[in-house]
C-alpha cells in the first residue's frame, strides 16, 4: 500500500474521512444544516478530486480501481449522497435524526458504493458491498419513532446477512476454482475460453442469488416493497438510486471477465430479467401505496438493466451504465418529491394522499408526473433513452423475446405510473387529499427535485454528452 495508491484513492478517502469527521463533530455539534453543509462539501470535494486529479495508479491494493469507470461512479454516488443530504434537511430535522450519525452514515454509504463500483477483486467487491449494506441496515431503521422503519430494517437485515453468507460462499467457490480474487483473472479462471466449470457454476449460482437479492430481482425481491415502505423516504431513494446501481456497476465488471462463460449464465440471467420485469410489473399494478409501487417498479427496472447486461459488448455495458445514471436520477427525484411532501408527522404514501396535488403543488407534482413518465420510459424523458439502450442491447444479443417481455412490461407498467399522475391531476374536482395535507416543500427541496427533473429531461433530449462520457469509460 503505497502513498501513490492512497493518493489514487483520495476521493473515497475524502468521503470516508469526512464521515469520520462528521461523526466526531456530531458528538457536540448538533446543528444539522452545518453538518450537512460539511458533508456536501466533502462530496463536492471528492467529486472534484475524482474529476480533476488524475490517479497515479490505476488499481489500488489489487482490490479497487481508480480508473475512469470507478471515478465516474464515484462522482455519481458522491452526487447522490450530497443530493440526499440536501433534500432531506427538513425531513431529518423534523424527525430529530441524530445529525452527526445521519450525515456520517450517508457519507460512508457513499464511500461504500464508490468502493463497490471500483472493486476489481472479489474481496473488494465484498467489502464495498458490506460497507454500505451495513450502513443501510442502520439508515433504514434510523427513525426510531417509526415501527415500520424498525421492521423494515430488521427484515432487510436478516435477509441481508443471509444473502451475505450466500455471497461469501459464492466468492469462496469462485476463489476455490480460480485461485484468485482478482476479478478478470478469477473470472477467466472460472471460465476461460470454455464453458464454466462446475465449481464456477456453483459459485456463480451463489453470486447471482446474492446479487439478485441486493438489486431485488424476482424471486429475491420480496424484501423490496416492505423496506421501501418502511424506510425513511430519503433512505429509500438512496437504496433505489445508489445501492442497486452500485451493485450493478460491479456486476458489469464481473460479467465482463467471464467471456464465453456468459453463455452458461445467459438462460438464468434471462429468466431473472424476464421474471423481474413481468412479476414486478404485475405486483406493482395493485399497489395503493406509492412507495411500495416504486419498490416494485425498481424490481422491474432492475430487470431491464439485467436485460442490457445480456449483451456483454461495450454497447451493452454502455446502455447499462446509462440506465443506472438515469435510474439514480429518477428515483432520487421521485423519492425527493415524497420527501418534500412529507410533513412533520408522516410521509404521504397512499395514492389518495396525492389527489389534486397537481393544482396545489404545481411544481413538485409536475416533477413527480415527469418522473413517473420517465419510469414508464416515455419520451422525451431519459427513461426512453435508457430503455432504448437496453432494448437495443437485448436485440443485439439475440434476445428478442426478452425485449418483447420488456415491451409488455413497459406497457402494463404505464398503468400504475399513470395511477399516480391521475391521482394528482385527474381525480374528482378539487378532491382534498385524504389524511394530513401534503407539505409544500422548501425551496431547497424544490431545487433538488428541479435538478433531477432537469437531468431526467436532459437525458431524454440531449443524452449525447453523457453517452460520450460513458463511452469513454469502457
Amino acid at each position, binding site marked *: *500500500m503505497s502513498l501513490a495508491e492512497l493518493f489514487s*484513492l483520495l476521493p473515497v478517502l475524502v468521503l*470516508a474521512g469526512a464521515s*469520520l469527521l462528521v*461523526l466526531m463533530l456530531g458528538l457536540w455539534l448538533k446543528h444539522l444544516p452545518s453538518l450537512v453543509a460539511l458533508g456536501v462539501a466533502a462530496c463536492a470535494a471528492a467529486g472534484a478530486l475524482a474529476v480533476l486529479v488524475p490517479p497515479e495508479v490505476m488499481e*489500488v*491494493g*489489487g*482490490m*479497487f480501481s481508480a480508473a475512469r469507470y470507478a471515478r465516474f461512479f464515484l462522482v455519481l454516488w458522491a452526487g447522490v449522497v450530497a443530493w440526499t443530504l440536501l433534500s432531506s434537511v427538513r425531513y431529518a430535522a423534523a424527525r430529530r435524526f*441524530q445529525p452527526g*450519525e445521519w450525515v*456520517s*452514515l450517508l457519507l*460512508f454509504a457513499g464511500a461504500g458504493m464508490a*468502493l463497490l463500483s471500483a472493486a476489481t477483486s472479489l*474481496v*473488494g467487491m465484498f*467489502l*464495498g458491498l*458490506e*460497507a454500505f449494506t*451495513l*450502513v443501510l*441496515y*442502520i439508515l433504514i*431503521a*434510523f*427513525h*426510531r*419513532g*417509526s*415501527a*415500520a*422503519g*424498525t421492521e*423494515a*430494517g430488521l427484515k432487510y437485515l436478516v435477509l441481508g446477512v443471509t444473502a451475505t453468507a450466500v455471497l461469501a460462499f459464492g466468492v469462496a467457490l469462485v476463489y*476455490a*476454482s480460480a485461485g484468485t480474487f482478482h476479478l478478470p483473472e478469477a473470472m477467466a479462471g472460472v471460465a476461460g475460453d470454455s464453458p464454466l*466449470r*462446475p*465449481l*464456477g*457454476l*456453483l459459485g456463480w449460482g451463489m453470486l447471482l442469488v446474492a446479487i439478485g437479492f441486493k438489486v431485488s430481482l424476482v424471486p429475491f425481491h420480496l424484501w423490496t416493497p416492505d423496506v421501501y*415502505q*418502511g424506510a425513511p423516504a430519503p433512505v429509500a431513494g438512496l437504496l433505489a438510486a445508489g445501492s442497486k446501481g452500485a451493485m450493478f456497476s460491479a456486476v458489469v465488471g464481473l460479467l465482463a471477465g467471464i467471456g464465453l462463460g456468459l453463455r452458461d449464465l445467459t438462460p438464468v440471467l434471462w429468466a431473472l430479467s424476464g421474471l423481474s420485469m413481468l412479476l414486478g410489473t404485475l405486483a406493482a399494478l395493485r399497489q395503493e*401505496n406509492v412507495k411500495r409501487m416504486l419498490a416494485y417498479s425498481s424490481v422491474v427496472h432492475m430487470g431491464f438493466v439485467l436485460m442490457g447486461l445480456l449483451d456483454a459488448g461495450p454497447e451493452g455495458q454502455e446502455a447499462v451504465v446509462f440506465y443506472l445514471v438515469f435510474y439514480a436520477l429518477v428515483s432520487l427525484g421521485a423519492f425527493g418529491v415524497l420527501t418534500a411532501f412529507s410533513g412533520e*408527522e*408522516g*410521509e404521504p*404514501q397512499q395514492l389518495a394522499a396525492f389527489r389534486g396535488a397537481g393544482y396545489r403543488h404545481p411544481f413538485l407534482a409536475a416533477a413527480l408526473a415527469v418522473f413517473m413518465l420517465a419510469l414508464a420510459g416515455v419520451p422525451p424523458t431519459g427513461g426512453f433513452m435508457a430503455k432504448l439502450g437496453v432494448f437495443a442491447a437485448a436485440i443485439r444479443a439475440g434476445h428478442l423475446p426478452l425485449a418483447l417481455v420488456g415491451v409488455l412490461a413497459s406497457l402494463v407498467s404505464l398503468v400504475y405510473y399513470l395511477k399516480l399522475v391521475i391521482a394528482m391531476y385527474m381525480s374528482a374536482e378539487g378532491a382534498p387529499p385524504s389524511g394530513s395535507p401534503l407539505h409544500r416543500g422548501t425551496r431547497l427541496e424544490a431545487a433538488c427535485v428541479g435538478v433531477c427533473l432537469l437531468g431526467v429531461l436532459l437525458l431524454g433530449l440531449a443524452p449525447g454528452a453523457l453517452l460520450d462520457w460513458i463511452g469513454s469509460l469502457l
Partner: protein
Amino acid sequence: MSTVIFYVLSATALVATLLCVTRKQAVHAIVYLINALFALALMFYLLGAPLVAAWEVIIYAGAIMVLFLFIVMMFELDPAREAQRPAPARRWPVVLISAVILACSLALAFADPAGQAGVPGYYASPRAFGELMFGEYALGVEVASFLLLFAAVGAYTVGRGDEPAGGGEGRR
C-alpha cells in the same frame, strides 16, 4: 494421521451443527454451535491457517457466541414458547429445498476437476499472513475497521430506547 483427524473433526463439527440446528432451546443450540466452532478451528489449523483458527476461537466462539448467549439470557427465553419446533408442514419443504441445494452443490463440486485434487499441505505462518493482510489487504482492514465502527454507532443508534415507541409513520 491428519487425514483421520480431519475426518473426525469434520464429523464432530457436522454433528454438533446438526444438533445446534435441531435443538429446541436457544442456549443448547448456542452451546452446540460453540462446540462445532472449536472443531472447525482445529480444521482450520489442519488446513494451514493457524491464525484464523485462533481468531475463530477468540472471535467467534468467544465473542460472538457469548454475545448471543448474553442476549438469550437477557430475554430469559421461555423454552416452551420461544423455541418450539416448527410444524412438520413447514419443516419438510424446508428440508426438501435444503436437500436440493445440498445435492446440487455436492454434485457440482464433485463434477469439478479441482475437487479431485488433494489439498496439499500448506501453512500460512502468522508473519506471512500478517504481511499479506496488512500489506496488500490493508485497505480491506481499513474498511473492516470502519465497518466495526459503524456497527457500534448503529447498535447504539438502533438499540437506544429513549424514543417513545409506536410512531405511526409508514404504516399501511
